[in-house]
């Protein structure tokens, strides 16, 4: 049942990150606006709670920080805005793919449960 929760979290985070990236694209020409992004791997790592039982296993590398939103530190244009539209669109596409993957997996999971129930 745990993977339901993981997928739910993944959908939740990608959904939130999508909102952040949409705001960045909308404000591509707003003076003094700073691009924001969500630290996502950390949040997911904390959520996944990987167990290590041997020395060669990869566990949680980072602790805590639930999807923090931080302003990007890259250099600003003359008007104090540091949004790079191409980068934001690329990030958004990548994020949307992740979202769709999670939804597809959830779909498969539900179908598997239904198949099991039918027997």
């Amino acid at each position: 049942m745990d993977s339901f929760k993981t997928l739910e979290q993944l959908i939740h985070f990608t959904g939130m990150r999508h909102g952040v990236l949409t705001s960045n694209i909308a404000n591509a020409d707003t003076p003094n606006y700073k691009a924001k992004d969500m630290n996502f791997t950390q949040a997911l790592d904390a959520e996944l709670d990987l167990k290590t039982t041997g020395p060669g296993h990869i566990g949680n590398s980072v602790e805590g920080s639930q999807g923090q939103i931080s302003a990007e530190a890259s250099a600003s244009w003359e008007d104090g805005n540091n949004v790079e539209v191409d980068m934001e669109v690329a990030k958004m596409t990548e994020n949307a793919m992740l979202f769709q993957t999670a939804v597809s997996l959830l779909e498969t999971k539900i179908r598997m449960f239904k198949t099991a129930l039918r027997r």
Partner: protein
Amino acid sequence: MDTFGVFKVSASALEAQKKRMNVIASNMANANSTRTEEGGPYKRKDVVFSSVLMEQAPVELEGVEVVDIAADNTPGKTIYDPGHPDADENGFVQMPNVNIVEEMTNMMMALRAYEASVSAFNISKTMFMKTLELTRQ
């Protein structure tokens, strides 16, 4: 939390860029207007964008709006044309401060920003449709 908040953010950007486009179009149309209601040659206008908070939780969604349409007061070119009806006693005419190249560049920037927001809108739509497919299970 507004389920369709991201659509409003994209829509605000589309609206703002369209207003910018309108202003640029009037600037270009009036590149040679030496007479205005306020008197003097036409002064080019510029939109002022400002971000506006549309949703606080779970994430801050910031849309954009046009808060002002400001006139550019830098003086335009003065050309010598004694036959012009608006020429002064020395034969000089004050032209508007519109630079067509600058307006074209601004127009391309507005177009790119508009396209990026349309892409964002479409991606949001795809994501929502994909989620809706879950109900068909």
